[in-house]
């Protein structure tokens, strides 16, 4: 096995262990109020931290990304379906970039 493939597999094992341990080891419903509350808040905090400001670097220009961000926020707030929020966000970026360049 060459070095590159060995490294790729090591990365995969580390990543899988992180993913599999809690899900297989925590087999019961947790009663502790602090942990329950903490886990309830985790998705909101983690995903919010990941979205902003990283979203501004994803497209060809921070301005198109900003517009895509605002559009996604507005439609998500209005309860538009997940698929449509994603599509409208893409569309707005595409249109802004057509105007920019």
């Amino acid at each position, binding site marked *: 096995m060459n070095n590159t493939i060995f490294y790729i597999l090591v*990365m*995969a094992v580390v990543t899988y262990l992180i993913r599999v341990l*809690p899900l297989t080891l*925590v087999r019961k419903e947790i009663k502790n109020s602090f942990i329950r509350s903490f886990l309830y808040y985790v998705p909101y905090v983690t*995903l919010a931290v990941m*979205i902003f400001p990283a979203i501004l670097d994803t497209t060809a220009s921070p301005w198109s990304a900003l517009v895509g961000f605002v559009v996604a926020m507005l439609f998500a707030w209005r309860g*538009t379906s997940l698929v449509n929020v994603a599509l409208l966000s893409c569309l707005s970026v595409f249109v802004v970039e057509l105007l920019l360049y």
Partner: protein
Amino acid sequence: MKTNLKEWKSGVNNGIPIAMGYFAVSFTFGILAKQAGLNPFEAVLMSVTNLTSAGQFAGLTLLSGAAAIVEIVMTQFIINSRYFLMSFALSQKINPNTSIFHRMTMAYGITDEVFGVSIALPRKLSPYYTYGVMSVAIPGWALGTLLGVISGNILPPRLISALSIALYGMLLAVIIPPAKGNKILSGLIVVSMGMSLIFAELPILSSISSGLKIIVLTFVIAGFAAIVFPVKEHAYE
């Protein structure tokens, strides 16, 4: 059996925007993988076995820099440690009787986006729902990688740029609707984004890797919220 199929279809449906976004991101990954000297097989192998954007991009840098194995393990551990918390949260979202086989299979698919749509379900999570999401998202990720490596210039940059925001759009569609009319969640999202911006911009803090930043801010902000605003019973389901 009928419900399993229904759950699977519902997962496929929500997996489509994820697959689109993955395609765009992994296409870019494929281009960079080629530049880093990986052949198509190695690049696709990395995508299929690792299934994580930030970890793979970092992996490329380390591979082309001939890093030590310890360094690679530590980097992946830090960048991907958020999956530990996501997996932990999912352990409470599924039925406690869920078999070890389902748990191990679902675990492979825990990415930010698959986690996002799974945790956002207004009911207990069925493994088949997550499988539905995975069954379109993972091929999207693999196919994008393959095309990126073998033909980096086949897709117009404009299209890639527009598609790249899809993942963020759908993550927003996961966290924003429950925050509507909920002051605590709305406040937490604003604080999280604000702190994340500060960490990204302040010169002293900006040297912290993004993986470390995510895990530190999650512990601090979600931990603080759990102490100050404990969640009432059953709110989690």
